[in-house]
């Protein structure tokens, strides 16, 4: 059975239907990419999974839990972390306080300290700047902080929304390297990206969205060779 299963998901913003019967699944250990143009509904899918946006119909099941019936603040303790679009770090708090909030639902101090060391090892720059106010970090560093903060919950699956948005090419490569590392360490990844080329290059499978519907899905490597994908999303 899939780790995360989305079936016939319907979401409305007022009278406008943002998601029209979305179904897909994510298996343990996979990197799944959701690609598509601006406004296709990628972010809405992630927001519905973690309870920021209510669904009108359908189901979301994560390891047997019905997420549509789980209070939003309890989802992270099921082992699901969400790195939201635009990073949404706590700009007035220090880097360390941001990371500590990532471990908000965890109780064991020793385990939290171990995870913090792991996050610092993965993002040495965050350790150097741990006492700095997060809002003063550069865009790329803020993205790292958002990812580090999500990792602090020790998630089984991590949802990432446009991690490359607004970053210089150098940082984009760095961020994608880190996503690969996170995946290699056993965390499942659900990645939303406008940078389809990059996303497909690290994903196992991908789903292509257009105006609230999945129009194409399959093996990431095959999608990269698909003519319609090439034309619409890879700029070839």
């Amino acid at each position, binding site marked *: 059975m899939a780790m995360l299963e989305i079936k016939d998901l319907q979401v409305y913003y007022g009278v406008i239907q943002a998601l029209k019967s979305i179904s897909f699944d994510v298996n343990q250990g996979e990197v799944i990419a959701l690609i598509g143009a601006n406004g296709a509904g990628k972010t809405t899918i992630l927001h519905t999974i*973690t*309870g*920021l946006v209510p669904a009108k119909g359908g189901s979301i099941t994560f390891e047997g839990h019905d997420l549509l019936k789980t*209070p*939003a*603040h*309890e*989802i*992270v*303790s099921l082992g699901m*972390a*969400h790195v*939201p679009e635009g990073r*949404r*770090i*706590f*700009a*007035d*708090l220090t880097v360390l*306080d941001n990371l*500590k*909030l*990532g471990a*908000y*639902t965890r109780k064991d101090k020793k385990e939290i300290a171990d995870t913090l060391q792991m996050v610092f090892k993965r993002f040495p720059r965050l350790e150097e700047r741990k006492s700095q106010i997060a*809002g003063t970090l550069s865009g790329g560093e803020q993205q790292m902080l958002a990812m580090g*903060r999500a990792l602090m*919950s020790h998630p089984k699956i991590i949802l990432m929304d446009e991690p490359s948005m607004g970053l210089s090419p150098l940082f984009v490569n760095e961020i994608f390297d880190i996503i690969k590392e996170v995946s290699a360490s056993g965390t499942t990844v659900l990645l939303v990206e406008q940078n389809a080329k990059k996303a497909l290059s690290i994903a196992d499978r991908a789903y292509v969205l257009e105006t609230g519907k999945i129009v194409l899905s399959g093996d990431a490597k095959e999608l990269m060779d698909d003519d319609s994908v090439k034309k619409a999303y890879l700029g070839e």
Partner: protein
Amino acid sequence: MKLLSQLLNGLNAGSIYALIAIGYTMVYGIAKMINFAHGDIIMVGAYIVWLAIAVLGLPVPLGLLIGVAACALLGILIEKIAYKPLRKAPPLAVLITAIGVSYFLQSASLLIFSSEKQTFPVTLALPSITLGELVIPGQTLLILIVTAVCMAALTFFINRTKAGSAMLAVSEDKDAAQLMGVNVNKTISMTFAIGSALAAVAGILFSSSYVYVYPTMGSLVGIKAFVAAVLGGIGSVPGAMLGGILLGLVESLSKTYISNQMSNAIVFGILIIVLLVKPSGLLGKSRPEKV
């Protein structure tokens, strides 16, 4: 000596303003609304203490505790009943509701307790201290100590506890806080409870020095505390503390050295000047809106 004792008077009033201003600023920080009923919590707290001690004859410490606890509960109830349903409503609707709650509390106490002034049943004071010519009145001493303890406890709570960091997170970004596993509703309730409990403490100190309890007693002091919160930078807890103390000092000094009648005009005039020069208040942040 006159100056020193006026400064003490100012600190006395300023401490009470500061305790109330903290409630305004905390609620603004977390719910992005001005809770205009906050001033009336002071009055409710004073009445409950009066009921507990003068009418029911309970021991003083218990009566004070009941007053503070009842106000914390009232704060939670007001948020749940009046403000929570409006969380996604336009700010004007929330503002009007807050004014409505304020009138409701005043009218309800008018119906229950009538407009007749009641005498606050206890005078809380420590022994006075004499330093040469300067006498620090026992009431002032108590007010200063209670305020300092409340502020220190609150600062510790916000900066050093998990619940405090949840509060900071919610005040910055509710959705992101929720993604961290913070229960946003519970955090908002907690904020209203703390703010209202501090208002009750202020109400007790206020009534203990000004003796009378009546339905509209919270209005003017509430508005002035709101001014103090804006002066210090609404949303900033240290700002509310500073704003409250400053307001008390300015008021006391202008009463003595300029004009008794003009003191309120001077206080509000200073607010206008500060807002012209620094619209975000003394310690407020002026951060550009995030896009």
